[in-house]
């Protein structure tokens, strides 16, 4: 692989060299050009095939699934009739739809807001060097290192209404038990809390490295001009961090939209649909029942892809405006 990229690099450079090589005869240049182009394609092909086989084809299949009326019989034997947007219409008119849409948006935006704010605060905090800072920073990475099944199961034990440690703590504060995972008014909040905890390290690491890239001289100069810590943050750190913040929020949004494991392990989207998001709903339709409903499941999955796509387009627009 290393070898390949070197050769590709050389061939590209060779092309550029040939283009600049004015005295060479036209025919020789063209043939050299063609052979180097062929080589470039030869190196491009594996990547293209990989992209098509593992990205384009599954997307196409998912789209196809969502546009046909699949039963278990037609899934196996083929011949599912094309039904256009019938699956989408069915999904949108499903009583779960509005609930899942609102939950997906609430889950994503509340998670992002807290993850980003706390991540930023911690990044600024750790940017000041003090003893034990690397160790503490490493500790903050723990949620990121744990497998999701471990962290989600741990949260679900801690929040258990009968024997959970959180209710035990509340008991000492004189507060009655809260049915974190089983009450319709709390289950969404519980999975959001767990997700915020899991997402903080990601924000911390990206923003911290962004802060490292800001020259220290800027804030020193500001300090000489009499700027306090808050002014320094507001006028220097935050504006200079904007590109990093944008990519952090963008990636965070795509990751959060599709969060599945935490919710499924902690509440299965319940009680009823209280913590159902598009991700868990899509899974429930496709695999969570004895009789799979592939069409509607794929339709919900595609809605999720569209939401992530919109987020991506917004990001590109913001990037362009910043660059302009």
């Amino acid at each position: 692989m290393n070898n390949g990229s070197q050769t590709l690099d050389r061939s590209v450079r060779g092309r550029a060299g040939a283009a600049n090589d004015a005295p060479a005869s036209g025919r020789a240049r063209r043939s050299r050009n063609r052979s180097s182009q062929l080589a470039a394609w030869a190196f491009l092909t594996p990547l293209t095939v990989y992209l098509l086989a593992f990205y384009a084809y599954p997307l196409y299949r998912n789209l196809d699934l969502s546009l046909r009326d699949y039963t278990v019989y037609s899934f196996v034997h083929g011949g599912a009739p094309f039904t256009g947007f019938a699956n989408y219409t069915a999904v949108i008119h499903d009583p779960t739809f509005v609930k899942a849409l609102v939950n997906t948006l609430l889950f994503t935006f509340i998670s992002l807001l807290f993850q980003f704010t706390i991540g930023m605060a911690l990044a600024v905090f750790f940017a000041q060097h003090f003893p034990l800072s690397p160790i503490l920073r490493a500790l903050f990475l723990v949620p990121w290192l744990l497998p999701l099944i471990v962290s989600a199961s741990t949260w679900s034990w801690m929040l258990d209404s009968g024997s959970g440690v959180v209710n035990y703590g509340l008991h000492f504060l004189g507060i009655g038990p809260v049915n974190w995972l089983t009450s319709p008014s709390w289950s969404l909040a519980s999975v959001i809390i767990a997700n915020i905890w899991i997402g903080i390290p990601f924000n911390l690491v990206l923003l911290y490295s962004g802060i490292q890239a800001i020259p220290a001289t800027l804030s020193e100069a500001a300090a000489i001009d009499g700027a306090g810590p808050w002014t320094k943050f507001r006028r220097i750190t935050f504006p200079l961090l904007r590109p990093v913040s944008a990519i952090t929020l963008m990636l965070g949004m795509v990751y959060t939209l599709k969060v599945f494991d935490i919710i499924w392990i902690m509440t299965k989207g319940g009680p009823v649909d209280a913590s159902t998001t598009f991700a868990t709903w899509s899974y429930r339709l496709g695999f969570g029942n004895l009789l799979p409903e592939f069409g509607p499941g794929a339709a919900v999955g595609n809605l999720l892809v569209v939401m992530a796509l919109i987020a991506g387009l917004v990001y590109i627009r913001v990037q362009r405006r910043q660059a302009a």
Partner: protein
Amino acid sequence: MHTDSFRRALGAGLAALALTASAAACSTSATSTGSSGSSAAGGTYTIWDPYPQLDSGSAWVQLLTKCGTEAGVTVKRTAYDTTALTSKELLAAQQGVSPDVLIVDNPVVSTLASAGVLTTTAQTHIDTSAVESNILAAGQINGSTYGIPIGANTLALYYNKTILQKAGVDPASITNWATLTAALAKVKAIGKTGITFSAIGTEEGSFQFEPWFWGAGANLTSLSSSQAVAALSLWTTWIKDGYAPNSVLNDTQPDNWNEFAAGNTAFSENGTWELSAAEKGSFPFGIIDIPAQNGGNAPTPTGGEFVTVPVQSNTSRYATTEKLVACLTSSDNAYTTDTALSYIGATSAVQTQQGNTTAALKPWITAVQTAKGRTSDNLGTKYPKISEQLWTAVQSALSGSASPQSALNTAQSAAQNAIG
């Protein structure tokens, strides 16, 4: 220029992809001819089962090997998690690579049968005459039988003898819902938890609710009947009165068992499969059958797997497959398997043998004899749709989002819509 080269690259990529795809197609057909050619003389027969906990040293795997040897073939066994098995088999059938023998949870049989994935026992000449009809019913759709049960399990109430003694409850006095609720009240009075069950929002939740649902005389085709409301009200009141913990809404059957095993809960609605764990537990336990509303035993849903034969393009394989299935389900072998899995036999011969050797199994044998298949009554693939609405109604009433009556009304109209 930029887009032009990109387009050309795309073209080259597509051509390469087409090449790879056709090469793959060639290799697939090559292997399938190879395997059908070798099947004439011995060959390898594949078996998929949902028992990943049983490793190659277990009695079950040894039995598979032995049955293979007797039929003159090599058996290749793969174990999958039970929840993954349905989609695995559907995909395998789509690709034409189904196993020769598939052992699958009984409510899935109707789904796979409607997918056209399974052969009937008439096609493969598998003899099901010895199997108890209430257990076999889960695998019967429109008069055809799609497999043979390897054994059965079901639900009953485990109780903690120490707690009941302290609370002054005689387990023999529990004969209907009223006496059970009275017992739970006495348990609560001494500061212990009355009962745990699993009301989780999956098939497990419906499975656990059905004994009460059927015990009230309700029918799965009419979810909003007054009997159904009575059953759901029973559970709702238990939670409201603090006889059952609120966490039941999120508990799987192993969770519910762990709470019981911790020793602070008087009853647990659980299955045969926990028997060996109970015997290793720290307190003496007993088992009673789940009572019906007005006395007698409630019909409980049958659990346990069916041995099925997926459709093969090469039908000559069925003859050997039949020998394998007959061997796996013969009385002696079924007894060994059911003991290993902590199941109850599906034939009266095995049940009698189990009753004679292990007295502790007696309540389970009666429970299995009155048990009912979830997909029985010709519900077939309607069952999963009804069941989804049933567990949703249970969740909605128990979490306090709706009254039992309105939760079940919603469930009934949603189920009606889903069935069409």
